[in-house]
């Protein structure tokens, strides 16, 4: 069984086409029938939502008429995540293989490489890899820089950027796979998902591994490729172990879930198993919060970030997230009138579901997870050391 990051030492940089083909064989010829293989594989999207890839491909293919568009999503706007960048800079041909397979399967007329504007090494690597591909493949491709904003990775924002140069989400429905770039059905797929597709085309099944970023209070923060039976404790050990006694884990990035360290350690890093427990691997970030950090300050800092990342299109998100962040900050700074906890609950319920995209929903779920996991800290907010969040 191969892995996404198998092959040459990652420190050597991007794998060239010749080496990629020598290691894995040429890209198998595939067409629309590949969608059945993809469905059987059970592959789910690796961008955060874990949506079954086969369903999306089938929907786009059914409406394509040769006019569909494939967006290769390498925006990676999640602040602590680095796995998409690592994949783009080290295994670009896996991603391109997946993209061209997708283009064949949904009969697309165009492939757009949508890469974060700050991810220069990833852009260079993907451009060099593209230059090694056939004329026929190169003609399909254009590139677009994703602005360094949290919402830029959302499907509708990616479509909006390609169409109009503005990476703000749009009202759904219609979703991108119904009506995307130029009104054509558009397949927006994360780069790790497409890399998995390249291996599924050769072996029939996904690798059984996930790319995760272990961040925060560990000795060697960074990206790991781990088997799905791996526990969070083992992933943290692979990242050098905790740098100090850990308090909690934020699983799945800023739209993720807080778990007390003692409860987190035994959890498997496997999206299906996590979902059975009401959790999710999300974008694959395992954030370790050291015991010396104040959880309330940390939560307030992330809420301020998420509020500032609202695209300011929908009132409940723009004003609501700001109000929620301000209330969290007042609690963190002990400048609260004791009604703030009630306000957090009421505003959370009111803001959720009232944006064009899921940004407010994600922020509220993050906050609710914090309030549920750390009730005493929020209620008392006692004896904490102030650190910059």
């Amino acid at each position: 069984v191969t892995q996404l990051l198998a092959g040459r030492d990652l420190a050597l940089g991007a794998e060239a086409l010749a080496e990629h083909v020598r290691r894995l064989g040429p890209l198998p010829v595939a067409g629309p029938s590949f969608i059945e293989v993809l469905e059987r594989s059970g592959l789910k999207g690796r961008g955060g939502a874990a949506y079954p890839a086969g369903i999306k491909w089938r929907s786009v293919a059914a409406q394509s008429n040769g006019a569909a568009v494939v967006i290769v999503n390498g925006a990676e706007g999640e602040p602590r995540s680095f796995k998409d960048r690592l994949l783009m800079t080290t295994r670009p041909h896996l991603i391109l293989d997946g993209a061209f397979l997708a283009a064949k399967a949904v009969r697309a007329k165009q492939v757009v490489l949508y890469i974060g504007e700050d991810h220069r090494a990833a852009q260079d690597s993907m451009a060099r890899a593209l230059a090694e591909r056939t004329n026929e493949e190169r003609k399909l491709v254009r590139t677009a820089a994703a602005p360094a904003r949290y919402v830029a990775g959302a499907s509708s924002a990616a479509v909006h950027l390609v169409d109009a140069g503005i990476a703000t989400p749009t009202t759904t429905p219609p979703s991108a796979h119904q009506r995307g770039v130029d009104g054509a059905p558009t397949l927006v797929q994360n780069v790790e998902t497409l890399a998995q597709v390249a291996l599924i085309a050769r072996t029939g099944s996904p690798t059984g591994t996930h790319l995760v970023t272990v961040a925060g209070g560990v000795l060697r923060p960074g990206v790991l490729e781990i088997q799905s039976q791996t526990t969070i404790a083992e992933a943290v050990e692979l990242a050098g172990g905790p740098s100090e006694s850990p308090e909690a884990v934020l699983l799945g990035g800023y739209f993720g879930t807080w778990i007390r360290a003692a409860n987190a350690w035994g959890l498997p890093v496997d999206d299906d198993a996590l979902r059975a427990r009401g959790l999710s691997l999300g974008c694959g970030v395992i954030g370790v919060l050291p015991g010396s950090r104040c959880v309330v300050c940390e939560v307030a800092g992330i809420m301020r970030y998420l509020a500032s990342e609202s695209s300011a299109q929908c009132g409940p998100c723009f004003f609501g997230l700001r109000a929620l962040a301000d209330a969290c900050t007042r609690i963190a700074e002990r400048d609260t009138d004791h009604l703030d906890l009630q306000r957090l609950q009421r505003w959370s319920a009111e803001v959720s579901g009232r944006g064009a995209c899921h940004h407010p929903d994600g922020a509220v779920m993050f906050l609710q997870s914090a309030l549920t996991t750390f009730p005493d800290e929020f209620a008392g907010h006692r004896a904490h050391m102030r650190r910059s969040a």
Partner: protein
Amino acid sequence: MRLVVDRIKCDGHGQCAELLPELIRLDDWGYPIVAQAEIPDHLVPLARRAVSGCPLLALALQRRAG
């Protein structure tokens, strides 16, 4: 039928809540919170009036799918 708000178009003018307080209230920032339930028959004419009264055409009536 039910009421739906285009959240991007809506600028919080608040007319809808004045015209149809039975189904629409405003949040702390003046944006409508709309009852998700099926609109009772006797309120449908008032709902239509609220829809046509929105200065940004952000409010609409939608037939439930299925």
